[in-house]
């Protein structure tokens, strides 16, 4: 296994005048749990989209498991082991919860027949969706949509999971449930990169924290130290992170 699972080298991306990544380099080790914070519009979601293949960088290379994946689309990257959740959940609304996970198990993980059923079921069980397996996904509430987003990513058999604000809009016990799931992923060696505004959730679940601002990594390292970094405090001045970070 290579020493780095995901490697971004000098990535740049802009939308007109908005810079979402500026000469950004970053690597993630297998099994690492990395938190990603930064003010709104910093480019966090765009970074995920570039890793997952939904968005092409203007410059730079993205490697996964030792191979450059720049030219691969999102489906191919999912099959390689990159699973993502969307900040705004995108369930297959007219399909059942089970069918949602089954798509990922069959297509993302390449499972067939009973094996695919088993895989889909296991990921739903893990995300506490078993009592809703036959529900149409479009009828789910926010918490269940977030759970399903995670379950579908897990059913695809990822080695790297990209979580985009899965805890946003949830209550504290609900957040705790998701944190526990992420902890268990890390325990079994799946790498996680987790974007979250609820920093309190992150600190307990990651061993490294990155702060992104205007497409640049301004701090990277031990979560507590990153939150105390003056540069981080500067970009967050007067926002909820500053408040939560001092708790």
């Amino acid at each position, binding site marked *: 296994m290579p020493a780095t699972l995901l490697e971004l080298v000098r990535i740049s991306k802009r939308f007109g005048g908005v810079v979402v990544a500026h000469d950004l380099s970053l690597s993630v080790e297998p099994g690492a749990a990395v938190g990603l914070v930064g003010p709104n519009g910093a480019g966090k979601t765009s970074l995920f989209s570039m890793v*997952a*293949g*939904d968005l092409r960088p203007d410059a730079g290379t993205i490697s996964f498991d030792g191979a450059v994946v720049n030219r691969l*689309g*999102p*489906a191919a990257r*999912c*099959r390689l082991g990159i*699973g*993502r959740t*969307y900040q705004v959940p*995108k*369930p*297959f*609304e*007219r*399909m*059942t919860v*089970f*069918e*949602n996970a*089954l*798509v*990922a198990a*069959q*297509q*993302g*993980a*390449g499972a*067939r*027949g*009973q094996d695919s*059923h*088993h895989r889909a*079921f296991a990921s739903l*069980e893990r995300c506490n969706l*078993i*009592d*809703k*397996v*036959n*529900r*149409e996904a479009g009828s789910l509430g926010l918490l269940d949509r977030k759970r399903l987003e995670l379950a*579908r*990513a897990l*059913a*695809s058999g990822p080695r790297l999971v990209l979580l985009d604000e899965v805890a946003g809009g949830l209550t504290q016990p609900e957040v705790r449930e998701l944190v526990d799931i992420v902890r268990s992923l890390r325990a079994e060696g799946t790498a996680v990169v987790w974007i979250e505004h609820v920093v309190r959730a992150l600190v307990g679940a990651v061993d490294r924290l990155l702060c992104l601002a205007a497409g640049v990594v301004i701090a990277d390292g031990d979560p507590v130290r990153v939150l105390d970094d003056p540069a981080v405090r500067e970009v967050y001045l007067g926002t909820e992170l500053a408040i939560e970070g001092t708790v």
Partner: protein
Amino acid sequence: MSAAGELLAPSAIDGTGFTVRRAARSSGWLLGFAAALVVLLAFMPALVSHGDTSLLVNVFVLLTISTMWNLLAGYAGLVSIGQQAFIGLGAYSVVVAAINGMEPFTVIPVAAVVCGVISIPVAALVFRTRGGYFAIATWVVASAAQLVISSITSIGGGTGHPVPGLSSLAPGEFANISYWSALAVVVVALAATYLLLRSRLGLVLAAVRDNEDAARAAGTRVTLARGVVFVLAAIGCGAAGALLAVTQLQVEPVAAFSVQWSAEIIFVTLIGGMGTIEGPILGTVIYFVLQQNLAQHGAWYLIIVGTVAVAVAIWFPRGLWGTVTRRLRFEFFPVRYQVVGPRPQDSGSPT
């Protein structure tokens, strides 16, 4: 065990006590009912007049092409308004084959395959566009096909060409063979659609229907799935076009490549319900009931058809069948998965 029973057999999820089966409350007897209906339809020529069987030929043709369009637009997200390209090419394949001495009825499957082959380079072209541009691109392809065919004088140019080789059949015999051919085409089209939607690819198509981005993120090869559907739809529309050629004995480019086909297909599929197998069936029945009862009223017919379309679009955005299947969790053709647990499920059978 019967074929239907095997298709419906549940499979256990080891070590959980749960099993997976297809569909909610529908069951094998519905498929049995469908089979009985096909047998009954096969005997129709003995029961009704040739006028009625020739009406049914038109019903089967419209149902076939609507079922194909439903796969395209209702599942693969490919809103084509150019399926008449393949209807016309299917019809002209029969003309060309018959001119060269082949038996017109036996050419129907060949014409279908020809359209499937032609659709591959067409897909490579039109798949470069998305959404509204895709719709326009397919329409442009259909118009281009019409222009090309109209310019070939050996097959009648713009005025069309009769289908030779059918005069040896007695009128009654001809009507019966036409009817059975149309029945065979529609049954094969529906059965293939059903099996496709039950397959792994069917699950992919349902995902693409619901959210293309999420489908890709879950690992599905969306473009490949779309390509398969595009080719299948061309095959189905080609068969329907070939049927029209043999049953009407004459092919004219303006009629065969008419955009009117797309209007009918869209009406039928939208009122019945996109993204369900049953939708186009219900839509086709409604369309022909309206047509048979109202066509003599001229403008009123069009006004009522338009009103029905608007009313359904407003109050039943999933179409009539789409609304039924959602409320009752009922499918005539069971393609969905149902997880049955050791505990009562919140949406399974009532406790």
